[in-house]
């Protein structure tokens, strides 16, 4: 970048500066390479974290004469003498920066790069916003994201001390870089003077963790804390359930024990007293084993299902007769739940209750077809008769589809289809499958030669 192309902001400052422009030759990369960066503070400087050492020469005599040293920034509160001195010579921070074209030198390598970085001169916001910060082995380079020509750099030797500021509400995380005072004969930079001896880099898009630092500060720090919290919660839960699994084991043992005692009660009635038996039974009841003697395996034969089956038999008698003695289970489900209003049945309960119908010698029974369709039918309902009548109907009409048959007989299409399929299975009907649909004919293959 040549001397003529500078952003307007710093231009003003340049012109206001009393120092003659001859002191600031136009910047060129060769000059940059030829003139080594001003002596960095080997004492107290954080140094390039990457581990590579910048090229340094010894302190310049000019600089030493001025007596600049760590005193300026090390003391927490400046004494009167220092304040006087400060007033006399304004501290320049931003003037440590030099214009650069962003190219790396021969021995210089890029360590890390971060976007979205803003530079603050001390506490003040300056126009250098939204840039890419590059940390190389020799320098810290800031390049404007929008205007790629605007590129400033500071040698790492200038950096004395670095600290992090955590992000707050409305504030992004910052790194504060304390710098050495600048030498007067260094290459021209964007600012000729600045008030404080440190700059701040504000990271809008994370990245403020320097390589090598592990402190939990900033957004990544927050994320890390969340992760730790999650791990801890995980551990707590597994610990808690550890106890619960022990409890389960104990409970199982208790149930086994109670069962064995119940059996003993059954066998030897005289060994324990009456009220002890009653007490023991109450314990069992509280644990959920209602009657250990007659309890059967889970899923079949529970009292609830038996009662339910009896109730169903009462409810369904009339509707079944209306529908010709047979109803699909879905219809039954709808009917029963509608009748109940409250305390609806679950399908599982219904099926379990229906399975017990036959065992309880009730006038209904559950029937499952080959295709899986489940129906409730009256005990008096004889499927064979139905098949014979179906055959008659089909023979009369020549051929029928299941829809036509359903309409003729007055039953649901599903049940009509089941009946026709059953008739085919028995050999009374044969099928005709074509693009027109599935029709059933009387089985002439068997009846005719």
């Amino acid at each position, binding site marked *: 970048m040549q001397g003529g192309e500078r952003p307007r902001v710093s231009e003003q400052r340049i012109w206001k500066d009393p120092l003659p422009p001859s002191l600031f030759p136009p910047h060129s990369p060769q000059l940059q390479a030829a003139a080594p960066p001003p002596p960095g503070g080997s004492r107290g400087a954080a140094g390039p974290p990457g581990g590579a050492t910048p090229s340094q020469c010894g302190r310049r005599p000019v600089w030493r004469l001025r007596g600049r040293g760590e005193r300026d920034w090390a003391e927490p509160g400046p004494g009167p003498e220092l304040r006087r001195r400060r007033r006399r010579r304004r501290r320049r921070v931003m003037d440590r920066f030099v214009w650069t074209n962003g190219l790396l030198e021969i021995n210089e390598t890029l360590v890390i790069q971060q976007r979205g970085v803003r530079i603050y001169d001390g506490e003040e916001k300056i126009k250098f916003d939204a840039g890419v910060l590059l940390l190389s082995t020799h320098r810290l380079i800031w390049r404007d994201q929008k205007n790629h020509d605007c590129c400033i750099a500071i040698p790492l030797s200038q950096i004395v001390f670095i600290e992090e500021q955590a992000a707050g509400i409305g504030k992004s995380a910052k790194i504060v870089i304390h710098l050495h005072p600048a030498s007067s004969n260094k290459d021209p930079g964007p600012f000729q003077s600045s008030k404080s001896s440190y700059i701040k880099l504000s990271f809008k898009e994370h990245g403020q963790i320097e390589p090598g630092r592990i402190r939990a500060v900033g957004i990544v720090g927050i994320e890390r804390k969340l992760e730790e919290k999650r791990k801890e919660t995980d551990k707590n839960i597994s610990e808690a359930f550890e106890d619960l699994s022990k409890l389960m084991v104990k409970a199982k043992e208790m149930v086994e024990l109670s069962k064995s005692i119940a059996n003993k009660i059954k066998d030897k009635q005289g060994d324990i007293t009456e009220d002890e038996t009653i007490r023991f039974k109450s314990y069992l009841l509280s644990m959920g084993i209602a009657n250990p003697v007659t309890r059967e395996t889970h899923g079949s034969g529970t009292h609830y299902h038996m009662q339910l089956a009896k109730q169903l038999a009462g409810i369904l008698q009339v509707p079944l007769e209306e529908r010709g003695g047979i109803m699909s289970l879905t219809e039954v489900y709808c009917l029963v739940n509608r009748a109940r209003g409250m305390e609806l049945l679950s399908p599982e309960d219904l099926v379990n209750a229906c399975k017990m119908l036959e065992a309880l010698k009730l006038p209904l029974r559950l029937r499952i077809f080959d295709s899986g369709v489940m129906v409730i039918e009256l005990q008096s309902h004889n499927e064979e008769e139905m098949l014979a009548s179906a055959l008659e109907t089909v023979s009369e009409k020549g*051929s029928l589809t299941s829809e036509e048959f359903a309409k003729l007989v007055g039953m649901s299409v599903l049940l009509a289809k089941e009946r026709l399929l059953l008739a*085919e*299975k028995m*050999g009374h009907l*044969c*099928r*005709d*499958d*074509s693009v027109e649909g599935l*029709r059933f*004919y009387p*089985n*002439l*293959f*068997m009846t*005719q030669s």
Partner: protein
Amino acid sequence: MLRPRPARGFLPVPGTPRPSPVPEVLRRAPEVRSKRFRFPWVTMATSFEWPWQYRFPPFFTLQPNVDTRQKQLAAWCSLVLSFCRLHRQSSMTVMEAQESPLFNNNKLQRKLPMESIQIVLEELRKKGNLEWLDKNKSSFLIMWRRPEEWGKLIYQWVSKSGQNNSVFTFYELTNGDDTEDEEFHGLDEATLLRALQALQLEHKAEIITVSDGRGVKFF
């Protein structure tokens, strides 16, 4: 209509060999004289009598009930054989069969699907009436009578006419004068070959090669 033939046994000059048989072109059976020899059913559809099953739509759907299916397949086999017999179709490709009125009833708008055709053909093969001519099962040889039965008939005729231990050419057997009244007259060569092979297995005949074709010697 037909060229007058010399009477049996008559020879114009004693000692001269029997005149060579009349070429096949002129001695074709009347039924197959039509030009469209490849699709003879076009001319013959009316004369063929379709069974009642052909007009029964469920015939064209493979029945799931096992007993019904057996009856259905039996009916199909007999229909195919009688169809091929009357139309003198000895070999066919599956494509042809699919398009023929045998498996296609246009009046009923019903067609036997390809899988079912394959099942019917497989059934015929098991019975011995069908033989696949190639590995892809795309063309087959259909014999309305099983080769063994043909062989038996031929052997019966040979024994009856007392011509055991004599040699016949294939042509003589199928198109010779002597066999005109026989059932195997006009039999196609492939079937004849298989029939004679069956006889060979029974050691009643032996197939040999003669000057202008193949021949068979009966024992």
